[in-house]
């Protein structure tokens, strides 16, 4: 709590590294190895995210009899993106097939995909490998 306030004031704040648009497009999204995933009958990707296993997490899991994994079902386009986040495709290489398959303009895909990847990264489901 205190740390959060200090961060907000700016004292120990760790700034996110700034990358240019070109670097962002050349970045390679990599899935988190801890997250298991499968494709369901409706061709949607289901992510199985393990619950926290520290002392508090274990205690809470026991009290609430929570399952071992949390599930997130991605929609059709989200599933496509997830499958392309294989550590081989760059962001730019993900944009191109999405734009042509869904007949979207490149700019539209770029904006939505960037936001989507940011969300995935914030939830620690993927990481971004940036070449410098």
């Amino acid at each position: 709590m205190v740390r959060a306030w200090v961060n907000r004031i700016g004292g120990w704040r760790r700034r996110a590294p700034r990358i240019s648009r070109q670097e962002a497009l050349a970045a390679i999204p990599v899935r988190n190895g801890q997250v298991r995933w499968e494709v369901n009958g409706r061709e949607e990707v289901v992510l199985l995210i393990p619950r926290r296993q520290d002392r508090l997490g274990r205690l809470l899991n026991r009290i609430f009899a929570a399952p071992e994994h949390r599930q997130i079902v991605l929609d059709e386009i989200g599933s496509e993106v997830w499958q392309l986040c294989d550590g081989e495709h760059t962001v730019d290489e993900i944009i191109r097939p999405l734009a042509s398959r869904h007949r979207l303009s490149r700019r539209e895909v770029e904006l939505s995909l960037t936001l989507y990847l940011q969300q995935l990264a914030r939830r620690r489901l993927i990481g971004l490998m940036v070449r410098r």
Partner: protein
Amino acid sequence: MPTLKRPKRPTSATRPAPTGGTLVGWRGVTVRVPEDWSPVLVSGEGPSGHLRIASPDSRVLEIKWKEVRGSASVPANLENYRRTLERIARRNRVELTWRLRPKQLTAIRPQRQQPIPYAWEATHRAYGVIWHCPHCLRMVTAEVAGDPDADFSVVPDILRSISDHAEGDWITWALYGLEFEAPKRFQLERTRLKTGHVEFQFRHAGRILWAERWGLARLALKQTDLKTWWTAQWAERLGRYRVEWEEAPVDGHRGLRLIGTERPLPAFTRLLGSLVALQWPAWCLRGYVWECPQSNRILAVTAMQRRGDRVVDEIVARMRCHRDRAP
């Protein structure tokens, strides 16, 4: 004695403007750019405006225009621009090289516009042209800038395709796959440029006109039909109207025509408002909504209008929702 005339070599200005690529149209200015270039900035009100279109790499096309009445000097405007660039270069301690009339851009615009092509290089390289249109009185600067090693071979085609004013009574609007013509008398009131949804709203003498397009039509209509989907999108606006639907194919696509009449209470409030503005109220709603599978889009043109107005039908008849239709 008959003489043989050598055929005149076509110059850039006499060559027809390119027709491929993506059309971008904003406030009467239209330009054709390569397929993967997208508008990133549109602005302007009244006599001036600005349009920026970016390529996937570093190249950016900027078109700025300003209405200049009275005597307009193209060289003086170019000189101002050059001085501004030099000032910026000095501030950033970079060397600026400036060239007038580069070979690549000879005869790029019609002579009556007194065009002056130019090029400059500092940390970036740019090719541009400045001209004054005697018809619309706009002083236009169009420039493609990018990294020095970028491919600038598309620049002449892009600059040649720029049209600085609309011919006739119709203005072409084209952004992110929504391409239509609206009557000049309708003034743009609002735009919504969101990913997946593009909307233009115009107004003229109490009438309101909306042109919209949504992307990912196949996904949107996967579990619902067009009427239900569109009614949900327009729930707020449709509440005021008693609406009737008809099947009406548009350009060979399955589509719907809606005809609505305002409910008594909203109609009465509108009548009071109209009396203040001394305008006859627009009580009717008329529109078309259709799905274009070729472009995977849903398009809609709707107007709040007076009984008997045909503007929506005319716009839809002129509209092009996908490519393979003959121009």
